[in-house]
């Protein structure tokens, strides 16, 4: 197996893993750095359930970056690089197979 093919497979695995991470983080459009922890508590005095909310540090991988100056904090960045590299690798593989034949 050529180096280009190994690179293609490697990138495919990376993209698959990052897509899994993105799905696991809740299909976020933008990368987030905090999430909200919500605790429900019964309030007997007012006869209702009240929410206690607090922001906690929690990186959630998004499709687009949270900061345009840091594009690597997004799935789309790795997607673009991987597709480009896979295409270049495919071209190289095709070229080398043509020259062999």
């Amino acid at each position, binding site marked *: 197996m050529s180096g280009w093919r190994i690179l293609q497979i490697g990138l495919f695995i990376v993209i698959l893993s990052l897509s899994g991470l993105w799905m696991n983080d809740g299909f976020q*459009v*933008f*990368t*987030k*750095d*905090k*999430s*909200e922890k919500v605790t429900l508590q019964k*309030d*007997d*005095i*007012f*006869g*209702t359930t*009240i*929410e*206690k*909310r607090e*922001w906690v540090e929690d990186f959630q991988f998004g499709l687009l970056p*949270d*900061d345009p100056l840091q594009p690597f904090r997004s799935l789309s960045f790795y997607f673009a690089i991987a597709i480009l590299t896979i295409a270049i690798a495919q071209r190289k593989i095709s070229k080398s197979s043509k020259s062999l034949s």
Partner: protein
Amino acid sequence: MKSFIILCIIIIASLELKATQLGNIKGKKQITLNKAVGTSIVKFYSNSPLEKFEGNSQLLQGSFTLVAEQLEQSTGQISFPVNSMKTGLSKRDDHMYGKDWLDAKSYPMVTFDVKKFTGIAIKKSDNTGIEFSAMAEGQCTLKGVSKYAKAKVYVKYVFESDATKKRAEGDLVMVDADFSVSLKDFNVLGKGDIIGSKVGENIDLDIKLFGNESN
């Protein structure tokens, strides 16, 4: 004809004088927001084609006066600092505080001045407390612009008891309020065409207030 006009005047005057009584309570009740009673919170929701997001502020402050004999005349003021609004994305929060958005430096507070209650409907009244729904009408001030605003409110007024005393002195109050603001109305224009694509044109607010009677 003359008697018809007089009748109309009497009807209009009686409608104007219509007063809703807060149970058997007498006088004015000054209610101040108090963390010991509960954490007051304003949650805001943005719905745009690209993203739905929500945020909140838990640094609400203020007070209101319930006029027991004529609830319609109740007033109050609630406010919270712009830079206490969080959405879970620090960069977006920084942009939100900036000049193109809410301009926290020049206009640090968002306020809602309640001038009167209308459409009051008593939902429950017993020896533990009173519940009523109403429309709170007043002025909302955001980014230095004041606009007439109307919020749907539901008030739970709980009389002082041994259980309430464990939280705070006096009668306790919880208010649930909902209203919506149009960013354009308050001169919040953002950058480019972000409003309408990444941020909703209208922001829905869901407010929960907790306070106790203060003298």
